[in-house]
């Protein structure tokens, strides 16, 4: 197992960090978080020019055909910068699903995603809030009419297209719809993480046979790998954000003098920082191990993704929470980026399956 970055991945991380420091500083993230309908169209245009939304899109559809590993290297930087917006749903999950689904409509949309002119969001969760096939029961018939609702749909206000997961007579089904289809109504939810989440209602929406993204029986073959990629993207995002928390804490512990000595000279703070380091490293390397398992087609790849997401969520949340204790009052102010990192980690820990869901997957994978 060789987990060293390629020169291209190192370059991608370095250029992303430089760009995000300039164009997506904490003040911008906070400003967008406070704006209930905030979407950084200018930033999205700029990252499209850099080729980020097209990383996982094949060259024949206008992307760069990069690997999931390349996208994860970028995700670490997006997490570090608390980059807001629909990158994971659109550029990771939808791009992967559309690529696997194929067909004229999927290919047309991929070309739009790659140039940044279109954004595709995901309507997955329903009342139970669980990302599992049996908890996504919206009745789908194509041709037919779609009636029901979805919850926690990210960036519906910015998206041009929508992937909807539900259930047809033949089992799980997945639709690809334009956001502008009559009868699709978005109502904003208000999340403390700064994510723009929506309730989507479908009021007798007309569905044609062409709206199916995958043929009956193939829905999960398209969705499964896309959701795994999404889960790993969230892992890398959490690892990047947690790494930044660690750096802020160590720097603070070094320079903050209390009672005549730096607080980092106390074992209480040293051990806390060491725990942060352990959590950051373990979250990060489980993510890269899972990427390696997926890329090399190992039979336990599902289990490694589940382990990475379950552990990453718990470890990164511990880092954020303990980080507050190390930083003290300064970290508790809105001017300090710690609260943005904490919220980013919280949102990523719950998206693409929370720790409980992935622990269930892991339990099944080891034969329980």
């Amino acid at each position, binding site marked *: 197992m060789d987990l060293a970055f390629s020169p291209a991945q190192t370059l991608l991380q370095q250029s992303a960090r430089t760009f995000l420091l300039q164009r997506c500083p904490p003040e911008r993230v906070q400003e967008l978080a406070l704006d209930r309908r905030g979407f950084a169209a200018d930033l999205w245009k700029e990252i499209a020019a850099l080729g980020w939304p097209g990383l996982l899109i094949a060259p024949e559809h206008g992307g760069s055909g990069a690997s999931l590993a390349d996208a994860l290297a970028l995700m670490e930087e997006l997490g570090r910068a608390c980059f807001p917006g629909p990158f994971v749903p659109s550029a990771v999950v939808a791009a992967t699903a559309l690529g696997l689904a194929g067909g004229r409509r999927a290919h047309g949309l991929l070309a739009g995603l790659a140039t940044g002119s279109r954004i595709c969001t995901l309507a997955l*969760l329903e009342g139970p*809030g*669980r990302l599992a096939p049996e908890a996504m029961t919206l009745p789908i018939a194509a041709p037919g009419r779609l009636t029901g609702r979805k*919850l*926690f749909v990210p960036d519906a206000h910015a998206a041009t297209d929508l992937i909807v997961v539900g259930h047809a007579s033949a089992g799980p089904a997945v639709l690809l719809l334009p956001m502008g289809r009559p009868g699709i109504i978005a*109502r*904003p*939810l*208000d*999340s*403390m*993480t700064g*994510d723009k989440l929506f*309730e989507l209602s479908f009021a007798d929406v007309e569905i044609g046979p062409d709206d199916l993204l995958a043929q009956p029986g193939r829905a999960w073959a398209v969705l499964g790998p896309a959701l795994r990629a999404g889960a790993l993207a969230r892992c890398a995002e959490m690892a990047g954000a947690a790494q930044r928390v660690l750096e802020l804490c160590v720097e603070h512990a070094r320079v903050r*003098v209390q*009672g*005549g*000595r730096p607080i980092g000279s*106390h074992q*209480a*703070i040293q051990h806390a920082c060491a725990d942060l380091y352990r959590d950051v490293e373990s979250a990060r390397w489980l993510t890269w191990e899972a990427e390696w398992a997926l890329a090399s087609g190992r039979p336990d790849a599902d289990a490694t993704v589940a382990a990475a997401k379950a552990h990453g969520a718990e470890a990164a*949340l511990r880092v954020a*929470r303990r980080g*507050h*204790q190390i930083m*003290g*009052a300064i970290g*508790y102010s809105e001017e300090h980026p710690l609260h943005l990192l*904490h919220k980013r980690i*919280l*949102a990523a820990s*719950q998206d693409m399956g*929370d*720790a*409980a869901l992935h622990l269930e997957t892991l339990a099944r994978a080891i034969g329980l």
Partner: protein
Amino acid sequence: MADELGQRVLSLGMELLGPYAALRAGSPEARLRGEIEHQYQTAWGHTLAGGTSEIQRTTIAVRALGLPAEPRGR
């Protein structure tokens, strides 16, 4: 140090509420009037204000248990 218990309880509450956890009071679909979200956000200040948990532990160790104090700053 009861505030650490509060942090644990609220973290568990956030976990139990899943994607509903982050919804603020007044949002459609908010659970428990957004109370867990609000309390979770304030909880991280409670173990800092009025003497951090570390200071409280040092006080217990030195004053109540009679352990030797850490050397003072140089």
